[in-house]
Every structure is written in structure tokens, then in C-alpha cells.
């Protein structure tokens, strides 16, 4: 079974794709293993938030995505 991993905003450019699929269960180490070294460094920086199943994680290293979850990687925002 799978989860979708979304790269929002400028992370999509870094990843070269707006989204990928991954096998469940998926934890933070598993997610980092799926991406390039450059993107791993970026994702580990404090600037990046992670949402799973519609909730922003207080601590992204607690990620544990299950079947059908959507994981969103959220770079610094800029609205208005």
C-alpha cells in the first residue's frame, strides 16, 4: 500500500517533481532515503514543516504515514 508525498512550492523545483509515491508504513528516515542528498539537507532544516493526513506535525521526525495518508512537505510560506 502507498502514501503520496507532495513537494509544495519551491520544494517541487528542488525535487524535480510535485509528488512521489512511497510504500507504507513510512517514517521520517524512510522519507529522507527516497530523496536526493540536497533535498535531504533542505528537508531537515527548521524552515520545512511536514503535514501528514491534513495535520502539521509538531515534530516532523515523528512522521509515521499509513495507507492512504498524504504527506505534504511545506517550505516557508509567502501569501498576501
Amino acid at each position: 500500500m502507498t502514501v503520496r508525498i507532495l513537494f509544495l512550492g519551491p520544494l517541487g523545483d528542488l525535487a524535480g517533481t510535485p509528488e512521489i509515491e512511497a510504500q507504507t508504513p513510512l517514517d521520517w528516515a524512510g522519507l529522507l532515503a527516497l530523496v536526493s542528498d540536497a533535498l535531504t539537507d533542505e528537508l531537515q532544516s527548521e524552515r520545512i514543516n511536514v503535514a501528514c493526513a491534513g495535520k502539521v506535525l509538531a515534530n516532523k521526525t515523528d512522521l509515521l504515514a499509513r495507507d492512504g495518508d498524504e504527506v505534504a512537505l511545506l517550505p516557508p510560506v509567502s501569501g498576501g
Partner: protein
Amino acid sequence: MRDIRLLTEPFIPGSLIGPFSNANPGLGGICTFVGEVRGEGGVEALELTHYEPLTQPGMHQLADAAFARFHLMGLLMVHRIGTLYPGEPIVCVSAAAKHRRAAIEAVDFCMDHLKSAAWFWKREKRSGRWHWIEPRTEDHADLARWE
């Protein structure tokens, strides 16, 4: 009275403000901010993306915080997504209250949060190429005023 919307098409702020004002009878003051796409620096277009599962819930939480913090009668928050062109409105926040400073401060508060604490990402097209816009240092300083 609370009206929160994400719009994918251009809008005319005045067409929202009239009904919003009428929906808050007895108000003493209404403050409205409209942000528009600036064309300076050769900006040809702006693209606003968001993360749908978080965006509207986040705007409702922001409205909750504004109602808890200020004595408001009504709050309107409208944000564009999609591709925008210079001169088009991106965002419109309007607050109705008995007293003026609650309305003005609520707009200031909501704008600071929409600018650098809501789930939007912005890039602009110059000379045919897209460039992501990072939040400015001042935007973070503005936001920190409310903590």
C-alpha cells in the same frame, strides 16, 4: 459574521465590501485592506499556490484568533490562488467593529498572518521566467509583534 473564501478568479473588492458592511448592522467602523499585484521590476504575472487540506482550516483558525483577540462584529478574508496579473487584487481583509481600533488592528493582525503564516506560496514571472518569493525579514518581524 464571518466570510472566508479562496478564489480562483479575479474579484472586485468593492463587490464584497458592500454586502459585508450591510451584513453587520450597527457597526461603528469598518476597516478594509486590499493587496494588489505590483508590476514593478518587470513582473508579468504572479502565481499563488496553496495546500488545500490546510489552507481554509488555517484561515478559519486565524479568524478564531482575531475574534478572540479583538472586539469584532464581522470578519471577511478573501485570498486569491492561481495566476494573477499586475493590478489584480490578491487579498482582501475587512473587519467590522463597534470601535475603530478593533477593526484596524484586526486587519493588521490578519494581514501579518496571511503574509507569513498561512499556507500559500508565491512566485513571480519576470522576463518569462518564474522566481519563488521568500517571505521578507520585515514580514517575520511584523508577525512577531502579535506574539
